[in-house]
């Protein structure tokens, strides 16, 4: 809340007595400024006009035309330019790095020679007194923890000499690297002397390459060296060197065989290169072994053989094209933000470069295209090409060759030589995820929205925000590596020899895919392998996310094969175990099927989770953590024992809505003096966004009340406790048009009341429904819920607005009360209906919004500070603005946090364009209006169809200070949440997010717990406190105590009376504490003035705040409600710890 301070400090300066003179001066200054401003814009405008109307230069014309043709629009183009500027690498740094690379080359040229060393010599090496340099070298290899990762069949002989050749490659070489970190890759060609004829066989090459790498790592005189795995690939150790100079640069060293020594055809996927079980994967049948190709092993060979040629090809094709390089940069940012480029099977930047090169050679992009067109074409290529069925190749390759590869690889993209599949290791699942994101990006560009650029490039989309369901398998890594999971055939083992752990994973994913079928779009795995000095590969992280398919994810039934198809049916039964059963369907057919019996919405949403659990737990017996719906527990009404089953707030909402519909029908059918043309809902419950919807129950709490006619009223003599809170449900009644309304405001209101009475009487006579009436509404007790009906009369609004001008002309002007009236009675119902529609379309909307409210309130930001309707609209905005709709409340909630934490409402209004009712042109106009006037507008601006771009609902709150606070809270909450899901060392639970930090407030009002009428809504509620509602069939014909919440009334009174001096915070869902901060205005002394004496004390001729008296006032106002009040001892100066994260 730092800004809070500043803002108010400014205010203080303005009002404090010391600055009276300065104030005057300021006013004068302002005045003169205004004058200047007045004259300035004129001249500026003229200038602008001149500028606008001057004849265009050719260059300018081209530029403007280009923007129109080559980019989406001006803003997008400028945004691209700005970001490219931000991520560009400075020439100076490049030079420094280059000179460091020169040094490195020097070192490489001067490496020592160690000839003819065999493997056994290294392992047998002993410490001697006199050691030759060779001995010394062997000794270090043996002792310094360079593990031999690969077994081989021979005692291979190696000779270590300086590399034959070296060559740089990678994005840095192609001038397409994204700053600020520098990174380049270096190919070292091993000398020919190292090799024998058939070294590609049986790991011999791998061993030689490994030791050569060790040799480089040991002898290179550079401080920061580390052996890592290329893309977490366990057969591809590489050396990573970091330059010690500032800025840091990284070089990755790849070792390859000498050019043309091995033939690339040795790596074709139909060749066997491993004849013995060197990877200890327990292969029994030797014939199978010798006849089955070692596909993945071959790919490793081929990678090294073809690396140089491919790198050259990339450089030659895109090395000189500036726009294409820019496109690559943008796309690397895009990939990086989505974390697709890390872990095993990633969509690496190399693959990206190959794809771009492919598009370039096939003329899908050319050098005249802008970077925008490059990325767009890339996306559209990915979105429209299904590589799973259409293999592609960089060079001219015969069809047979493609077919050959297709046979062994799920995805095929052949390189220039036609022997290496560039995406051999790209995980199909990740490919699918990238494809999905590409389609999203493309659609985003098509129906361009303001924040699409931010969404594409500037915001991180970590796994937990992409996928609804996250599974953490890190705990069972050992088990998976120990090959206990799947039963692979010998053939399968040979095909993927060298990659058993990944084979196991693939098996798990296959099972999951089989079980989840169409419920999901894709699974995104995230596997991280690190190189350890002792064991070699070390799996550090194993996570995967499952992206649900919103249309089919929650189907109740999984239909299997027909019963008479015995073999298939048996297979299905075996797969599903006890979950499977035989069922007859409506069309008369009988199938084996899995039926998930669910009664609540939450249960329905849990079906995918149940399936994942079934596979991982019951089928595979793995240990795992699953993150899917933990937060939903916070929106379950737990404090009241309910007469019906609930999952979240949805069931109770639905019940209320059905009741409301019934009652409305009855009202409309009744004969009355004017027909009812429509009844619309106002309350949040109609859009399923109420955290604790009223529970429709035939029994009302009677304790602590008296009966007065048909009403329960409170008993002032017996109020040690109070009946629990009953929320009324607000509805609006529209009447058919009539010209008979009186021409007088008072009279209209009276007629309205008489209409309420008429309705009440009708309900009583015709349906025996109890109701009561006052001047403001008709209150009906129906089905165990309380409904409040109010009439909306257009005439009333016009009478409120009516103004008569001097010349007798009648005008209709908006005024405060008329705006308020229209806002609640005319606009709000429209919004509520639209939101209800949204919930119908995306069933997670309601509970997600409820979750957001619950979170915000738990952080003591209540409806007064951040209104419910504003939350409803903000969550609606990202269901409407993005194509990637969240399927579950949890992910929507997490995205909300992320959105709030990173959004800049000062620059960007929130756009809630229901059903695209605002046209694009109007939207642009509204936006430019906003940009023009934003200094004077409310800090949070919502553009939506029903209030003519006035953002009526955010007129008074939230304030800038509250927004800052909420943003800070959201930021720490997202950080905590990401940590929870991705960091294995994090100990804490999801409940931490909802805990409140009570530090830093100035006073704490402890309320009397016994008088808390909403204690059942409290977060850390003990189960004991439950209100039990007895079941009773017969409906009570009384009106209970409705909408009586003394804490809320007290808080309101506090705000009305002391809002100028202090700010109050309260958890409206069952809170027992009101926290308060003195407003900064309180701190200064004031000169005696009639308008300034209130709540103050005269001391030394200055007015100072009378805190003691005000605290006493709090006591008096809250008689019977306040237990005691704590004040912060540091009375004069308080630190604002509040800004620290609420979760500590």
């Amino acid at each position, binding site marked *: 809340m730092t800004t809070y301070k500043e803002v108010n400090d400014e205010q203080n300066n303005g009002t404090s007595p010391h600055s009276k003179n300065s104030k005057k001066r300021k006013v004068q200054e302002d005045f003169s400024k205004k004058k200047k401003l007045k004259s300035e814009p004129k001249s500026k405008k003229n200038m602008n006009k001149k500028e606008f109307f001057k004849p265009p230069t050719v260059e300018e014309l081209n530029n403007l035309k280009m923007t129109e043709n080559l980019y989406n629009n001006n*803003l997008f183009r400028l945004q691209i330019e700005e970001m490219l500027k931000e991520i560009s690498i400075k020439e100076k740094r490049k030079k420094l790095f280059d000179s460091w690379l020169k040094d490195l080359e020097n070192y490489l040229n001067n490496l020592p020679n160690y000839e003819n060393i065999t493997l056994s010599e290294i392992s047998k090496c002993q410490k001697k007194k006199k050691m030759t340099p060779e001995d010394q070298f062997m000794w270090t290899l043996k002792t310094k923890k360079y593990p031999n990762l690969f077994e081989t069949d021979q005692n291979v002989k190696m000779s270590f000499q300086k590399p034959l050749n070296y060559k740089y490659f990678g994005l840095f070489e192609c001038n397409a690297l994204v700053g600020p970190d520098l990174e380049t890759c270096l190919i070292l060609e091993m000398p020919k002397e190292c090799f024998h004829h058939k070294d590609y066989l049986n790991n011999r090459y791998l061993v030689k390459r490994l030791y050569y790498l060790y040799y480089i790592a040991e002898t290179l005189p550079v401080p920061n060296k580390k052996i890592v795995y290329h893309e977490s690939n366990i057969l591809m150790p590489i050396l990573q060197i970091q330059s010690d100079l500032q800025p840091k640069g990284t070089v990755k060293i790849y070792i390859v065989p000498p050019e043309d020594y091995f033939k690339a055809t040795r790596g074709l996927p139909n060749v066997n290169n491993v004849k013995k079980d060197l990877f200890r994967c327990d292969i029994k049948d030797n014939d199978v072994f010798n006849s089955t190709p070692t596909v993945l092993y071959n790919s490793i060979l081929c990678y090294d053989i073809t690396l140089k040629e491919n790198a050259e090809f990339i450089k030659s094709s895109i090395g000189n094209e500036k726009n294409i390089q820019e496109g690559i940069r943008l796309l690397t940012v895009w990939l990086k933000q989505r974390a697709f480029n890390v872990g095993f099977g990633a969509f690496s930047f190399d693959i990206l470069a190959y794809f771009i090169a492919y598009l370039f050679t096939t003329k899908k992009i050319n050098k005249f295209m802008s970077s925008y067109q490059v990325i767009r074409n890339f996306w559209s290529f990915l979105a429209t090409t299904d590589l799973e069925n259409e293999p592609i190749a960089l060079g001219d390759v015969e069809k047979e060759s493609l077919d050959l590869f297709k046979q062994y690889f799920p995805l095929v993209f052949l390189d220039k030589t036609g022997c290496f599949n560039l995406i051999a290791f790209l995980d199909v699942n990740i490919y699918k995820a990238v494809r999905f994101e590409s389609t999203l990006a493309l659609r985003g560009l098509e129906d361009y929205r303001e924040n699409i650029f931010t969404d594409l490039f500037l915001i991180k989309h970590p796994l937990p925000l992409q996928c609804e369901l996250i599974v953490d398998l890190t705990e069972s890594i050992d088990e998976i590596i120990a090959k206990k999971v799947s039963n692979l055939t010998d053939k399968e083992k040979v095909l993927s020899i060298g990659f058993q752990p990944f084979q196991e994973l693939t098996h798990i994913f296959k099972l999951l895919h089989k079980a989840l079928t169409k419920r999901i779009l894709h699974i995104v795995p995230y596997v991280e392998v690190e190189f350890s000095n002792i064991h070699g590969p070390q799996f550090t992280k194993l996570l995967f996310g499952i992206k649900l398919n919103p249309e089919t994810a929650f189907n109740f039934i999984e239909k299997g094969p027909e019963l008479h198809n015995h073999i298939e049916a048996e297979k299905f039964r075996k797969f599903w175990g006890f979950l499977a059963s035989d069922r007859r369907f409506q069309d008369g057919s009988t199938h084996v099927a899995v039926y998930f019996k669910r009664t609540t919405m939450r249960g329905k949403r849990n079906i995918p989770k149940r399936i994942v659990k079934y596979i991982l737990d019951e089928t595979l017996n793995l240990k795992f953590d699953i993150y899917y719906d933990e937060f939903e527990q916070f929106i379950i009404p737990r404090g009241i024992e309910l007469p019906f089953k609930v999952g979240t707030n949805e069931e109770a909402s639905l019940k209320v809505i059905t009741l409301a519909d019934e009652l409305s029908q009855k009202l409309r059918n009744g004969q009355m003096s004017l027909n009812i043309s429509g009844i619309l809902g106002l309350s949040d419950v109609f859009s399923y966004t109420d955290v604790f919807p009223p529970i429709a129950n035939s029994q009302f709490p009677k304790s602590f009340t008296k009966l007065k006619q048909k009403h329960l009223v409170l008993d002032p003599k017996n109020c040690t406790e109070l009946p629990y809170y009953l929320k009324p449900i607000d509805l609006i009644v529209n009447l058919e048009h009539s010209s008979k309304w009186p021409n007088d405001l008072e009279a209209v209101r009276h007629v309205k009341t008489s209409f309420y009475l008429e309705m009440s009487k009708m309900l009583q006579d015709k349906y025996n429904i109890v109701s009561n009436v006052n001047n403001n509404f008709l209150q009906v007790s129906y089905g165990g819920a309380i409904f409040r009906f109010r009439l909306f009369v257009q005439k009333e609004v016009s009478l409120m607005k009516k103004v008569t001008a001097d010349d007798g002309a009648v005008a209709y002007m908006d005024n405060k009360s008329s705006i308020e009236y229209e806002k609640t009675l005319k606009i709000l119902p429209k919004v509520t209906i639209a939101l209800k529609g949204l919930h119908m379309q995306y069933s997670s909307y309601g509970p997600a919004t409820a979750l957001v409210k619950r979170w915000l309130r738990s952080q003591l930001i209540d409806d007064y500070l951040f209104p419910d309707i504003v939350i409803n609209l903000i969550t609606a905005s990202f269901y409407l603005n993005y194509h990637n709709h969240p399927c579950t409340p949890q992910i929507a909630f997490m995205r909300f946090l992320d959105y709030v934490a990173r959004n800049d409402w000062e620059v960007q209004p929130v756009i809630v364009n229901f059903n695209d009712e605002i046209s694009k042109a109007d939207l642009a106009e509204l936006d430019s209006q906003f940009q023009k006037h934003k200094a004077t507008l409310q800090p949070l601006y919502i553009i939506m169809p029903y209030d003519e771009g006035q953002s009526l609902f955010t007129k008074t709150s939230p304030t800038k200070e509250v927004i800052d606070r909420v943003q800070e809270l959201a930021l720490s909450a997202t950080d905590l949440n990401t940590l929870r899901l991705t960091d294995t060392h994090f100990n804490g639970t999801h409940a931490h997010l909802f805990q409140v930090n009570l530090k830093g407030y100035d006073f704490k009002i402890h309320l009397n717990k016994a008088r808390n009428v909403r204690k059942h809504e409290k977060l850390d509620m003990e189960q004991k406190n439950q209100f039990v509602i007895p079941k009773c069939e017969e409906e009570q014909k009384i009106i209970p105590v409705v909408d009586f919440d003394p804490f809320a009334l007290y808080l309101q009174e506090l705000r009305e009376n002391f809002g100028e001096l202090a700010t109050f915070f309260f958890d409206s869902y069952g809170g027992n504490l009101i926290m308060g901060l003195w407003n900064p205005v309180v701190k200064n002394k004031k000169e005696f003035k009639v308008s300034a*004496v209130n709540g103050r004390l005269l001391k030394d001729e200055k007015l100072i705040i009378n805190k003691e008296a005000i605290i006493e006032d709090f006591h008096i106002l809250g008689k019977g409600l306040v237990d005691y009040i704590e004040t912060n001892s540091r009375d004069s100066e308080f630190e604002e710890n509040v800004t620290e994260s609420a979760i500590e």
Partner: protein
Amino acid sequence: MTAAKIENNFESTNHIRFSIISLRLTKDSTTPRQLFIKEHSLRRQEANKPQGRTLFILNIPPYIDEDNVKTWFCSAGKILNVFLENQQITSTNGYKQAYVVFVKREGLLKALQMSHVEFDGDRSVKTGLEKYIENYNNSICDPDKLSKELSTFMLKFEKNEKKDKKTKDVDEDGWTVVTRKGHKPGLANKESVKLKLNEKIGKKSKVKELKNFYTFQLKERKMKNLTELRKNFEEAKKKINLMKSSRRFKPY
């Protein structure tokens, strides 16, 4: 601090003459509270706050009502009336000011000499739960009473309207007032009607214009397109600058 002393202080600092009364809300309260009082004097006279007999009080806590104020000052003399009001209607500071009208001037003079008021707030101030319960119970209306109230109001209203109508139709001089109804109704004297008329006139003149007749018109139109493009560009630029200032372009 005695009242007299404070008064002197004020004089020396050239302030309006207020004196201070300390207020104790409950018997055992130790909280210091100050009421600022002076004789009510305004240039504009108000009949119900007669000069010379009215006491002006500032800094009264929000939950105090007229009766409470009355009890505070009844010892000074007989009180005719008490007015309690907020300083500003929209302010969120609940402290109030009051005018106490005494029957005689002596009362006022005596009140000005008071140094403190004490009263039993615990019993005579209704706040908190008690007040909320009472308010709730009172908010429930009896339907019969309500309908009776309504019918009396409507009767009165209809009577008034009839009277109005009669006076409207024929004015004092015997002229008949022209209304919208009738044989040839005039236009309603409304702002919206005026606007509509103006619009109509504008439309008519537009129809008469030929748009693609002269070359300069074509030229102008092209130029207009161009300026539109330029304007968009400028606007986008402005927005970018804004985003730049909040460092929105660093992806990570």
